[in-house]
């Protein structure tokens, strides 16, 4: 058949299953550590984790984060520390989802959901404010009207953070070195590459001990 064999190829495809996803109605499952839209986490008692240190803004290669810290009001503190981020903005027209902010954050305040299906109509909508980024009282991301949530995108918001080595030390890989999250508690390490934890050096009980 030679030159005409292409006709057989195309005809046999007719009887094979379709691979098209019905996208707006259903989403293909994404990896747990997928870098999506950010959230600002809170402790289990409802306090904000962000301390307004601006390390995320400093490390951001796209310069899309704008943070201003302020002293906590003594009578109604926002975060357990001395200061809190009273301005926190991320410009999603610039963000490249590299997750360097998540790595830089000393208090695991900023992590990412799996959501990338958001399409804003204005530049104002593209700049997420602190109120929009903060998780709600149930520990879930606040859903904006221009975002397409089908459920499950914010189940594992800190998975990528929990998969990296605390303090950047490979020997600490898989050790719990993070605080609890509102609505979720202290979560186990996210491991998918190593089944067994490496042995710690003698006399070391892990980070933070």
């Amino acid at each position: 058949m030679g030159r005409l064999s292409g006709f057989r190829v195309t005809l046999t495809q007719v009887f094979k299953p379709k691979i098209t996803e019905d996208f707006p109605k259903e989403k293909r499952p994404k990896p747990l550590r997928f870098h999506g839209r950010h959230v600002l986490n809170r402790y289990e008692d409802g306090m904000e984790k962000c301390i307004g240190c601006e390390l995320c803004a400093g490390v951001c290669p796209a310069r899309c984060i704008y943070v201003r810290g302020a002293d906590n009001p003594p009578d109604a503190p926002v975060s357990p520390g001395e200061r809190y981020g009273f301005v926190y903005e991320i410009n999603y027209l610039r963000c490249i989802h590299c997750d360097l902010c998540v790595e830089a954050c000393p208090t695991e305040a900023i992590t990412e959901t799996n959501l990338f299906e958001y399409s804003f109509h204005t530049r104002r909508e593209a700049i997420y404010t602190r109120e929009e980024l903060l998780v709600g009282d149930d520990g879930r991301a606040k859903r904006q009207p221009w975002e397409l949530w089908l459920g499950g995108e914010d189940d594992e918001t800190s998975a990528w953070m929990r998969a990296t080595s605390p303090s950047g030390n490979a020997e600490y890989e898989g050790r719990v070195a993070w605080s609890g999250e509102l609505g979720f508690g202290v979560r186990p390490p996210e491991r998918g590459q190593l089944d067994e934890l490496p042995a710690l050096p003698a006399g070391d009980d892990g980070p933070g001990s």
Partner: protein
Amino acid sequence: MAVFAGGDPLFDHGIDLTVVVMLIVKTFVVFGLLLVSVLLYIWFMRKVIADMQNRIGPDKAGPFGILQTLADGVKLFFKERTTPIAADRPVYLLAPFVSALAAFLAFAIVPFGGAVRIGSHATFLQLADPPVGILWLLAMSGLGVYGVMLAGWSSGSKYPLLGSVRASAQVLSYEAAVGLSVVGVLVLTNTLSTRGIVGQQAWHSWDSFVSQWLWLPAIGAFIIFLIAATAETNHPPFDFSEAEEELAGGYHIEYSGIRFAIFYLAEFMNVITMSAIAVTLFLGGPSGPWLTLVAHHGWVNVWIVPVFWFLLKLWAVLYGTVWIRASLPRLRYDLLMNLGWKVLIEAAFLWAMVTGVIVVARDRGWNVYLTAFAAGAAALLVYGFLMACVPRAGELEEIR
């Protein structure tokens, strides 16, 4: 009028108001049929190609996305229509309509049903049955080149000009092959009238499929016609006029909105017309088995069954065009010209000659098989001689 009235019994008793009204109604019906066919064909094409690529295809507008083409058309209708500053405005505005008009007029000679009676008037289910018949098709597809040529020239831009030069060169080249392959049929049928050609392929029994229909007696002409018609309608794998990678769209690149849509309409009308002509010439047109459950000359067998057979064959051929579109990559331009001038035209010409010899042998009572063998051998010899004479690619360079 006599020339164009042809054998249609509508004109047997002179032309009065009823005849004129019936003609106008027929015109609208045929035009509507063609437009609806284009709408359905584009949807059908997208669905079938999607099937062949494991996709779903359009499925949002209407049931199974069947209204997708209509939605696209409405969108294009309301889009901005720009005119380049350098364009030759009257010609630029006229060109799309020349294309569409020629495409529609070519369809007028296609018989899509049998002879019917409306009141006291008998008529054929086809817009016109001129004695010049098939020549009308060749004339109209030749006229369609003007639309392409004028569009490219009047746009005042380089890509359209190149695209239109390519397209017209291609269409004119393959018109010769189409014409000569049609000759292979005309020698057998001895008439130009499409109604006459279809009448000779009438259905008598299941044997008619091979004995009456002309696809087997004129198998060579059939194959040549299919290839040449594919090229003449600028259909993939011969769609050089709009080679996106080279010409960024070809002759209609400067057109937008509804004017662009009309070019596409004309292109798909041409595909449907050529498929309908292939059905008419080779596949018996509206002829097919009668429905034996009802009376032979009842309205079902007169009105419905022939139209059903015609549409079934038409869509079978159209499925073939879509299949080709999904399977074959675009040729190189010189290969296209090689195929047209060095293979198809000679083959069609020799096929017509051999068919003529066989017809003469049959009429004179000679031994048909011996004559056919001798004529075929002579044709192969001539073809081999021609091929030996034609320089191959690169040979001219050496001579120079």
